[in-house]
């Protein structure tokens, strides 16, 4: 376990010493603050609209951080050849995969909770409401979803050599699931036969990232989701994360790494 944490520690150190990460991070924070600072709110509708926009920004930004950071981990180790002195030590490839996952997930989590913190400050100071429970739940669910995404990207990065292809493919898949994944079963019903079964199957076998989107609960201040639902969703995320990590390990385990 210490070995996994050691690998994760290096991921996090690299991230906070890189400039591109700061750029994205600061940009999101500033935009959130700026949106909140605009002073024409007494109109419910506009307030909601701005809140919605801020949350969308947080979603896109967190996804970008997660995907870009994760996609380059293993390829960068191979390209810079740092993987060799590492694997020459008593560490298994499974531990390396687990460490990379943990590092990316923790780093993304820190970024995410800071984003939500800003968001809470802004809306709190404007509207004088502090639904901390709703925020925590929304952030937690989003973080759980990001675990699935990070594990999936890690898997992709083992099969596609170039981080750029992993980035593009991951982004398309994630956006696709978020936008249409939840409607596939409905779409299926309106299709003619072979297509109907195919779409229904696709609906059943994809990880449903869109379930983790609690933005409407925050925007419309709908209160918290039952804890049981959150627990189930967390379990579901853990299972998918485990599956992707297992597949990633399986691909990495038998790779020839030649010096």
């Amino acid at each position: 376990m210490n070995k996994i944490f050691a690998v994760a520690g290096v991921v996090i150190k690299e991230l906070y010493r890189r400039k591109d990460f700061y750029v994205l991070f600061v940009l999101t924070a500033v935009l959130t603050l700026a949106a909140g600072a605009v002073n024409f709110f007494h109109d419910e509708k506009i307030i909601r609209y701005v809140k919605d926009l801020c949350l969308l920004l947080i979603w896109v930004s967190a996804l970008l951080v997660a995907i870009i950071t994760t996609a380059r981990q293993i390829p960068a180790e191979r390209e810079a050849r740092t993987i060799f002195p590492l694997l020459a030590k008593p560490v298994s490839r499974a531990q390396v995969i687990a460490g990379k996952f943990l590092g990316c997930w923790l780093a993304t989590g820190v970024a995410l909770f800071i984003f939500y913190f800003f968001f809470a400050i802004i809306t709190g100071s404007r509207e004088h409401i502090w639904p901390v429970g709703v925020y925590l739940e929304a952030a937690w669910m989003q973080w759980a979803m990001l675990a699935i995404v990070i594990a999936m990207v890690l898997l992709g990065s083992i099969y596609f050599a170039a981080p750029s292809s992993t980035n593009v493919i991951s982004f398309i898949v994630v956006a696709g699931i978020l936008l249409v994944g939840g409607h596939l079963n409905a779409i299926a019903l309106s299709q003619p036969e072979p297509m109907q079964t195919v779409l229904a199957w696709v609906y059943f076998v994809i990880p449903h990232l869109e379930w983790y989107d609690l933005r409407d609960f925050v925007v419309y201040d709908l209160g918290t989701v039952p804890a049981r639902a959150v627990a189930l969703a967390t379990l579901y995320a853990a299972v998918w994360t485990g599956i992707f990590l297992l597949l990633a390990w399986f691909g990495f385990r038998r790779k020839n790494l030649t010096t």
Partner: protein
Amino acid sequence: MNVILKTEKLRVEYRNRDFRQQSKVALVGLDLEVHAGEIFGFLGPNGAGKTTTMNVLLGFVPPTSGAASLFGIDVRQPIARQRIGYLPELTYYYKFLTAEELLRFYAKIFGLTRAETDKRIAQLLKLVELEHAAKRPIKGYSKGMQQRVGIAQSLINNPDLLILDEPTSGLDPLGRMKVREIIQRLKDEGKTVFFSSHELGEVEAICDHVAIVHEGQLKATGTVAEISAGHTNLEQSFLKIVGYQTTLVP
């Protein structure tokens, strides 16, 4: 004496990505034994299979067939590498870490305690003369300094077996001298060093045992004296063994 590094009928085929091309056989049933306390030179012309052998020992490449072990543990188990140090031919380390952070990271992988780590890092930074730069990121280091970081990391766990892939080909004269001194010191401490090289003069000067590989096969193994017997020096017998024939007309 204890065998601490062993390969048995080791065969490695590099499968080609392009399925129309044949796979490349790099090792053809290599049998090798290195005993505790030896300074063992692993010799062979370019392409003989030296790096491939090391890649198997370090777990980078799985053997196609046959077996390899370190301290009696199959190399497919990471724990086989608990007591070894490895210096790659070319050294590249996480550039955003400082030398001290890098060493601390590797110490964690070896499971050293905090106190051991602190002590070891202080010793090693002194050994490779990097105390003054220890808190600067590696990306600002000169090439020679980066090589010395490499030497330090290979010794972080106080290894009983040091594996070096052509240690002198990538190093500047200072680094080279350092490596020689370290090899001599490890020898005095009764440790084992396994290194590949094709610089025979150097091998003759520091090794006690050698093995010669050629085209993926072991051609000869023994003490330097045994191998050179009947020839003017190690180089002459090496050339004979790998089948070199002069094309100059006398």
